[in-house]
């Protein structure tokens, strides 16, 4: 029987998530011009989306935005170095979570699933370690993070299965035929071998739909599913440029392993 320490799993998850969040914050600093007067995240533009007026106090949040990004970068580095269980790590995770939410409030648009799972991971870890780490709360946080990953894969799988576009099998070719998410050479390969394109889209659907079942099976099956998941996120990052998913989702795998060990009768 495989025994994995939930604390070690939560620590690994938090550190890897912090790596992804650090890269994301540095990327946001790179495009800080977009937060200026002419950018897509301009204060006036975001205020119009919220329907805030000048008295709303949003100006204050705007003034803090870049400084908050800077503080969050320091917090993520501290979290990576210290882990979530050291006193400095606990302060770092609290600061990171607070800064993260200020930035999300200021930015409003342009977010994605990777950001969401990182926010959930940080929040659950925060609840596990404040005021001091407790084994019960660590188990709860590990279960919550693992369950969110399972929910994400299974929901995505079922939604894809219910979509005729995905079932038809040419969907990858269509996504790849865009500048935003594609590469010309991949489109050429998928057009030349349409059966490969169909097979790949069905592989994604089956993998995501059956993720919970794979996890509940023997440990080799669960580790196989996670290896497939890692390969999937790596392929998505390389081919589509969705780099933050490569950190955010595999980061939760240690928690998923612990959850698998708890729910599977075969481990």
């Amino acid at each position, binding site marked *: 029987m495989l025994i994995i320490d939930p604390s070690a799993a939560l620590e690994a998850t938090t550190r890897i998530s912090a790596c992804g969040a650090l890269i994301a914050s540095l990327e946001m600093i790179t495009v800080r011009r977009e937060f200026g007067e002419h950018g897509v995240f301009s204060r006036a533009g*975001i205020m119009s989306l919220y329907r805030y007026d000048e008295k709303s106090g949003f100006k204050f949040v705007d003034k803090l935005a870049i400084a908050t990004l800077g503080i969050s970068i320091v917090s993520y580095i501290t979290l990576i170095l210290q882990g979530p269980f050291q006193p400095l790590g606990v302060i770092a995770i609290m600061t990171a979570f607070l800064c993260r939410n200020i930035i999300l409030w200021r930015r409003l648009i342009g977010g994605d699933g990777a950001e969401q799972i990182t926010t959930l991971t940080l929040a659950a870890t925060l609840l596990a370690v404040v005021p001091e780490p407790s084994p019960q709360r660590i188990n*709860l946080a590990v279960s919550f993070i693992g369950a*969110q990953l399972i*929910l994400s894969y299974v929901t*995505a799988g079922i939604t894809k299965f219910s979509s005729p576009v995905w079932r038809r099998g040419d*969907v990858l070719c269509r996504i790849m035929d865009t500048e*935003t998410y594609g590469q010309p050479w991949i489109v050429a390969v998928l057009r030349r071998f349409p059966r490969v394109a169909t097979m790949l889209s069905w592989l994604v659907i089956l993998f995501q739909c059956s993720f919970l079942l794979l996890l509940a099976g023997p440990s080799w099956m669960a580790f196989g599913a996670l290896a497939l998941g890692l390969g999937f996120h790596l392929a998505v990052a390389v081919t589509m440029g969705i780099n933050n998913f490569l950190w955010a989702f595999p980061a939760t795998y240690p928690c998923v392993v612990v959850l698998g060990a708890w729910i599977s009768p075969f481990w």
Partner: protein
Amino acid sequence: MASIWNYIVAVILSLWFGASVIHQFSPNWWCRLVRSDLFGLLPHWSFFAPNPAHEDTHVVYRDLQNGEWCAWIVLTARGNRGRWRWFWNPNRYPRKAANDLINGLRRSGQKLEHSPRSIILSNSYVGLLQWVAAQSRNPGVTHRQFAIVTSNGFGSERPLDLLFLSESHRVDH
């Protein structure tokens, strides 16, 4: 005291997970309830489904200067096809933001099918207009108009389709 806190955390995380499950189905009553989820604490895990993006969308605008329309100017950031984009891809933020606004406009368009002009009051239209209006302009410009165009494939020669054309808006100097 510690055990009470453990129970409270158990309740919070259970409710949160339950809410996350309901959020995947997003029934109308639920959408009204969680309309102001500012921080995205309730995830939506649909990832490129049911209808994935199969076209590039671009926000473009043009000015009416001295009574004549000028050439269209592209506002949207270009996609990054560099070899490091699997690790470093900052442009996805502005691109995704523009896509969010455009998708919002599409949804509003579908909702307001019977009174298409009311779209100018929708959040996404106002957000896009605010972005377009914030761009600098030359003297003599009196009006500005934006459009959403879509494209497939790669390169500057690819054909464009018009998805949406805004009203012409007077600009103040």
